[in-house]
């Protein structure tokens, strides 16, 4: 067991966990930030995606030891009051169905637009292909991202 210090959603947090504990379970079990979802545990579904700095990462693939000292943003910290342009676009396009995968989708989309504010369809494909949605919300996710790229309200 070790005391691990990380910054989550701008707040310094300290947890006492095993060094190999994935960030996913630190967030969900220790910090009670359950917006980050477990889907596969092996980095192929994208449900557990969080931001490390401006980069989208799989929280199931980052151990406590690797996470120590780093800054993360979860869906709970994407904005205060759902005012991130992507969250607004998600509501405008009524993207979600069951909603379970959507936190990961939103965080990857936000990292994409931070890196490429004029993201094209192929940029969207490349970034979002790392995510699984069984409800099939892909067409609406694409529209929501385009909406933000266009600067539409």
């Amino acid at each position, binding site marked *: 067991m070790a005391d691990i210090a990380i910054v989550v959603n701008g707040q310094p947090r300290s947890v006492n966990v095993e060094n190999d504990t994935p960030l996913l379970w630190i967030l969900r079990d220790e910090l009670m930030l359950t917006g980050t*979802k477990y889907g596969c545990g092996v980095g192929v*579904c994208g449900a557990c995606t969080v931001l490390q700095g401006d980069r989208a990462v799989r929280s199931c693939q980052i151990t406590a030891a690797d996470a120590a000292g780093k800054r993360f943003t979860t869906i709970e910290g994407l904005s205060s009051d759902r005012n991130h342009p992507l*969250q607004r676009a998600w509501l405008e396009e*009524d993207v*979600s169905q*069951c909603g379970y995968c959507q936190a990961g989708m939103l965080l990857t989309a936000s990292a994409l637009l931070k890196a490429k504010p004029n993201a094209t369809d192929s940029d969207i494909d490349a970034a979002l292909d790392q995510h699984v*949605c069984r409800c*099939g919300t892909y067409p609406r996710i694409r529209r929501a991202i385009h909406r933000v790229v266009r600067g539409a309200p």
Partner: protein
Amino acid sequence: MTSRRDFVRYGALSGSALILGIRRTGDAVTVYKAPARFAPNAWIAIDETGRTVLAIGKQEMGQGVRTSLAMILADELDADWSAIELVQASPGPLFTRLNTGGSWSIGGSWRPLREAGAAARAMLIAAAAAKWGVDASACTSDTGAVVHNASGRRLRYGELVPAAARLTVPTNARAKTAAERRIVGTRRARIDAPHIVDGSAKYGIDTRIPGMLVATIVRPPVPGATIAAIDSTATRRVRGVGAVQRLSSGVAVVATNTWAALKGRAALTVQWNEGENRGFNSADHWKTLQAGLGEAGVITRSVGSPRSATPNAKIVEARYDYPFAAHAPVEPMNCVAHVHDGRCEVWVPTQAPNRVQRDVARLLGMQPEAVHVTPTLIGGGFGRRLAVDYALEAAELSRAIAAPVQVLWTREDDMRHGHFQNASLHQMFGAIDQSGRPLAWRHKKVASLHNLSGPPTADDLKDPVAYFQDSMWGAYDIPYAFPAIETSYVRVDVPYRIGPWRAVYSPPSTFARECFVDELAQAAAADPLEFRLSLLRDAEETVKAGGLTIDRARLRRVLELVRERSGWGTPLPAGRGRGVACNVYDGETHLAYVAEVSLPNQRRNGYLPFTVHRVTCAVDCGVVINPLGIEQQVESGVIWALSNMKGEITFKDGRVEQGTYRDFPVVRMSEAPVIETHIVPSHGEQPFGMGEPSVPPLIPAVLNALYAATGRRIRRLPVLATDLA
């Protein structure tokens, strides 16, 4: 959670103006003075402040039912849509039909919810009329208020609560006519969406209760395997691991946190007596299915003389193969149970709360009312969560360890120990005359029955035709007018659990039927869409198949609409092809697709070996509740079915070979086509479901398009690159 418990108690005392409420928070029970409340039935409660709470009696798994059922209730009540609150009903005497499947939520709730809303609205109007000393017929309702038409006086529902609560609930309140509806038929965004985009929506897996432990379970690698030996030495060294507990379904590793439970499980050694199923493998099973083709089976529908020879007939025969598939919802199975003080509390993402209550009570030897089930949001259901296995595990484990516990399945557990859509073979026979007119149609399905509650009982088989018809949706209810039809079912049992799938039994049969009708169109040298129309035109407008009524006129209308909107028959870029397919789902929703496909310039590993550019849908689901919800369910069904063309579950040495989305691939963003939905205006006063009807005709539309694009008939799923090489 507190409000839900309160609500049920109010509901049980419906019609009375209550002043005392009972609130239970954890173990503490408090009695408090509540605002007066008007709760004329189980579905609606309005308090003096105007707070309007609607109960939702079906389970939300993405199909939008919390939004659409609320729309029906709120419209009939004339509630203020922006101000309503929802509460998810728990099983109890007032809520006995919470189980959610078969696309029956909307159709089955339409009448009771409208009656509930209409009765409440009539009482509020009567209360206002009495206050004003006017006739109720001189008043109307408008967005959470009653209005006296002549004077313009207005009373909000909250203000009418004490008076309305003293009135007798009418049994014959008039529901709104179509013209009077203000919410039903309009586009309404998903009511839970704001909580989804900020991460605050709570799914089953997010349940956290005081003192809760977490468990993962090692299950038999082969069905029927029994435990020979357990070595938990290494497991017990994992910090955080507590009990290692044998259960009916395997061995549970219980820990204080999820990671310890996962590590502890990985460290556990269980030796199994693998038993008689250890030799089961897919190749042998396909041979068994093929052998079944030689059996007569049970005739599920017979029209005319399907076996009489016709001189000069053109005969077409083909076999279609459909694989095993897993639901693989992104939220794995999970359940929190707390057995204490002679009762059991359950928090569970389930499609079947009533079944959870019944079966947990049976397992624990309790009365059903001692089991309190809190249904949560569901991270994908698709039929998987009609089975309650994971809830039983949690209840059994909580009792054994005397603690609240969350049972969490891993992704691998989910893919290997679910219940599958079963593999099936479809032997098709068609005969047309020299001018392409239909003569005979035969469809034999060799497959496995749902076996979640064991093999069919003698009682089930009292009416074998009806029983096997259920397993042949999409086959025996063929809408086309052949003068001779025979459909039959040959049963082959498998040692794996087989259960409901999205669109239940329909997708495999509809795949075979709609691809094969294209083959007949080809034999008749006819346009596939016009050929279908001709098979629906020169015959009775409706036809009975088992308990279903197929409306050929409605099916023609969706085909004609999809023909127009897809640009059917207009030129396409080189290499692209169009395909059509249609279906009447369970005698209810009528739906047609046109798909446009081509082969990609560059094949990508892990992706479909073809590109679906565009899918056009025309649908008639009766009264339209929420056009936006219909569009979403079409998009969802298209992409769900496309995944079915991509992955399969296979068996080797009795074991499922797949475990994650890596080896059971599903459709990703770059594979999703552009999807357009066109809704046929309602011609009736009954709405039908949309969660499933969008699934069955998609695969044949795509395969028929692939034929148009490439000249290759693909008759087996999943579609492999080698099929198109």
